[in-house]
Structure formats: structure tokens, C-alpha cells
């Protein structure tokens, strides 16, 4: 029973990402949207949290929100998947439930 976790805040603003990572189960998907995309940047003090779970979780970044902030794939932690809104819809339908970490 896999779950989709959505995070819409930067890890430098609140602890939504770290809370989600602590609760997510093997096979779950983590989707970073809105300011949550800052959590996908490599080389930050928060990058290690995602890197530590890269094997048992799958990570997705909403590309529109990434480019809106002037960020590009080359700046992200390796192994993350860029998706569009259609991909977001697919993640919702292919997981049993979704949890917004607000």
C-alpha cells in the first residue's frame, strides 16, 4: 500500500520534508512542488536527507515549479525524476493514497 507524499515548502522554511522522510515507507513516492523544490537542490544542508532515502523511496520534482524558480535539473540531487502536472496526476492514481505535508 504505497503512498504519495507531497511537500510544498522549502526545507529551510519548515520541517515538512524531514517529517515526510521520517514517516515514508519503502516504495512510497515523494513529490516536491511549489517551494518544496528547493529541497531537491544538491549540496545544501538538507540534501543528505533525500540522499539517505534514495534507494527505498522514489523522488519526483514538479518541473514547472522548478523552472519558475530559475532552477534546472543539473542543480538537483542525482536520481530525482522531473514530472509535469500530468505526471502528478499519474502519481496520485498509481498510489493508494496521497498525503500533503502542509
Amino acid at each position, binding site marked *: 500500500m504505497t503512498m504519495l507524499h507531497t511537500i*510544498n515548502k522549502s526545507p529551510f522554511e519548515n520541517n515538512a520534508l524531514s517529517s515526510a522522510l521520517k514517516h515514508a515507507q519503502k516504495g512510497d513516492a515523494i513529490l516536491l512542488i511549489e517551494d518544496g523544490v528547493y529541497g531537491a537542490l544538491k549540496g545544501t544542508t538538507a540534501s543528505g536527507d533525500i540522499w539517505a532515502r534514495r534507494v527505498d523511496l522514489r523522488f519526483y520534482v514538479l518541473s514547472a515549479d522548478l523552472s519558475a524558480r530559475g532552477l534546472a535539473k543539473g542543480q538537483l540531487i542525482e536520481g530525482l525524476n522531473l514530472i509535469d*502536472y500530468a505526471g502528478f*496526476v499519474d502519481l*496520485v*492514481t498509481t498510489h493508494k*493514497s496521497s498525503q500533503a505535508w502542509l
Partner: protein
Amino acid sequence: MKISILVNEGPYTHQASDSAYQFTKAALEKGHEVFRVFFYNDGVNNGTRLTVPPQDDRNIQKNWSELAEKHKLDLVVCIAAAQRRGILDEGEAKRHGKGDGAANIAPGFRISGLGQLIEMGIESDRLVVFGD
């Protein structure tokens, strides 16, 4: 698949209303049924027809109303949250003695209760939440 959406944040606040709109549009384009969009807390401010954003900015309320018309969407505004924030339909404006023309619920939206949120949770295959 039957999908419902909950919007907890007002328009032009952060990004939740925009994200919810884009998600709803994408779900419809993929052929899914959007059972209902429920606006709660400051999210009810998506449903006032009195918003007049600058012409070069997106009009979030109008986007919702047009999407609702095109796809026969059920856009529901929480009544208690709406009354606190001055969102009224004809019936509520009259009931509270606010005078003629005070109703400001936007086209395509309707005011109802939390039961509608519970129902959409039961009736839908998926519930997706957008907020602050």
C-alpha cells in the same frame, strides 16, 4: 478514476490555489472524473466574484469558474468559512440582512457544508489536498 480536491489556502497567497487549479485541469485532460473541489478555510476566497486582479495577472476565480462551466465541475465553498470571510450567495445574504446585491459567490461555485467534504472523501478514489 474519481478524484476530489481540497483547497485550504486563499488565492494570491502562496501557490496552493494555482497548483490545485493546474492539477484539476491536468486530471480532467487525462480523462479522470473530478468528483468535487472543496474550498475550506481561506480557500473560500477563491469563490468571490468581486476579485479584480491586474489585467496582466492570472484571474484565479475566473479560471475556476470557466473550468467549472466547461467540465460541469462541482465547486463547493464551506459555509462556515465563507460566512466568516464575507462570501455569500443570495440565500445567505438575505438571511443575514445584507441587502440586495450583497451576494458575491462566483459563477460555478456553491455554498454548502462540511458534509460535502466527508462525502467526497467517501465517494472518490483519491483525495488530493492543496494548502499552505
